[in-house]
């Protein structure tokens, strides 16, 4: 029983970490058909900004979180104006933006290496304490992350479903030209989406670093997992992504216990391959890449 509780707890923690990393990525893909390879670096940057704001600037953790979200939103905007906007006018947007964001991600990552050094740093924004279920001790931090993932998901869902701006984002993702004919200023929507995904990345970076600690390269793994989640869910499907993230987290924890840790990642990847071959547009995807 304890083992089961432990696996579920670990699975939910992993799933929550993947989910927070995925939301921003999925949103950007959904609305711009853009695989943002700088997502991992932005996420890490968010973690570092939060750390610096608390430790060096002495800000309250809540303010630090806002500061990180703000800075990363700016980075998102910068990516829009410097890369996405010029590339949207040319052919081969999908491949070009893929390469361009790889370059941008590498710049951000190496600037962090210069600025914050290579040593792992603990994330000061963390919740102390634990809850005990059976004989299993679950750090409150993990529960906190799961909560944040759910809040973010619900927040993004409300934004997308219930607000006019959110509808415009969805409309743009479904049909750019038709959205323009409704009077949607597509450029502004793209800028908003990239800014929003930057802010989401910052929050997820803070959450992930509170468990995995801050290093300049820490974003790579969550980004890879986020891609996997996106594929399983269907690219650009935000709800599907959260559900898939948590399911994959649970699967990973179970594989780690049953088969051994070293097989867990390979199992995830094999699952992705099977899903893609069996359901080419993801478990929750439709024939066309239709989001939400």
């Amino acid at each position, binding site marked *: 029983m304890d083992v089961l509780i432990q696996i579920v707890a670990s699975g939910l923690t992993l799933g929550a970490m993947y989910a927070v990393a995925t939301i921003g990525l999925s949103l950007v*893909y959904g609305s711009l*058909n853009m*695989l943002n390879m700088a997502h991992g670096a932005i996420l890490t940057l968010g973690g570092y900004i939060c750390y610096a704001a608390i430790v060096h600037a002495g800000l309250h953790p809540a303010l630090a979180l806002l500061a990180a979200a703000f800075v990363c939103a700016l980075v998102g905007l910068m990516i829009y104006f*410097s*890369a996405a906007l*010029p*590339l949207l006018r*040319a*052919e*081969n947007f*999908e*491949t*070009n933006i*893929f*390469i*361009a*964001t*790889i*370059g*941008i*991600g*590498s*710049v951000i*990552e*190496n*600037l962090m290496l*210069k600025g914050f050094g290579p040593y792992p740093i603990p994330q000061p924004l963390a919740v102390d304490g634990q809850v005990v279920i059976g004989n299993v001790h679950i750090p409150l931090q993990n529960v906190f992350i799961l909560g944040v993932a759910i809040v973010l998901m619900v927040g993004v869902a409300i934004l997308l479903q219930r607000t006019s701006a959110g509808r415009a984002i969805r409309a743009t993702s479904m049909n750019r030209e038709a959205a323009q004919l409704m009077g949607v200023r597509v450029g502004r929507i793209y800028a908003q989406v990239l800014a929003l995904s930057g802010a989401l990345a910052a929050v997820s970076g803070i959450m992930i670093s509170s468990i995995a600690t801050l290093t300049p390269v820490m974003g790579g793994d969550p980004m*890879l997992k986020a*891609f*996997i989640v*996106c*594929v399983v869910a269907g*690219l650009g499907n935000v709800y599907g992504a959260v559900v898939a993230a948590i399911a994959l987290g649970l699967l990973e924890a179970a594989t780690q216990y049953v088969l051994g840790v*070293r*097989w867990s*990642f*390979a199992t995830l*990847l*094999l699952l*992705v*391959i099977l899903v*893609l*071959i069996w359901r*080419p*547009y993801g478990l929750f995807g439709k024939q066309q890449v239709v989001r939400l």
Partner: protein
Amino acid sequence: MTSIRRDILIGLVCLALAVALPFAMPGRYVITQSTLFFIWAIVVVQWNLVLGIGGIFSLAQMALFATGAYATAMLGFYWKVPMLAAIPMAGVITVAVGMLIGLACLRLRGPYVALLTLAIAQVMYVLIVNDTDCFTTTGGCMPLFGGVRGIGQFGDIGLRALFPSKWYVAHYYVGLALLAVAVTISIIVIRGPLGLAFRALRDNPGYAMSRGISRFKYQLWIFAVSAFFTGIAGGFYAIHFRVVGPTVFSFSTLLFLIAMIVIGGLGSIWGPLLGAAVLMLADEGMRELSDYRNIGLGLLLAVFVIAWPNGLNGWLQRSRASRN
């Protein structure tokens, strides 16, 4: 001048320059780096066939390269196959793997292909790296695929023994010859019926289908053709470095190579070669920046793509067209 004649002319000029290089600049560093350039150029020229001509966003090319390298090394290590036989055998094995990957990708489009092929490459990597059980214990614990340490001591093509102090020059010419063949194949594919079929499929899929041009058949063909030389290049890489490790799957190498194609110009004949040359020179030049090297490289990558979204080749063609 017809385009095919122009291609032959450019090819011969480049070849002549490359043949002369070891005489003009005999420094070892230039030679060994050029050999590496040949190896990567073979890969990008073949990758370009899938990516640029086939329009399939496949990231499996490095996995195919690794397949060739591992097959060569393992044939030599476990079965003592002479390297001159092992490398072509590795090419054939790579073709088989390439066609399997092609089959898996058939129903997918765009970024899903990218993610599927990446997942396949990652599975291969993870399975090799996480294998810590000893398969044999000759020369220490050795997992089946060599684990993290990789496979070494599997043999040589004999050029080191033949030219003890100048073996690297010999390898240079081997690499050059392989590249020349690979480029010839790529010209034949692009200008020939396979290229035509893909152009038809891209420009007017309905019409192409009605004329009996089946995506299925051509997609498999292009995977097979590009896999063969990529596998051979992998084998040569193994020989050249004497060791094959899981770093051939490294994501950064993969990104570096795909950047070559995109920067050079997707789908063109000379673009990927040009891109490979530009990026390898940039990579070399950025070493002068030491700590700022990766920042410089990243900036360069982004700036190139944003400034010339059709690749250097597209840009050159356009500027020539506007002059005429």
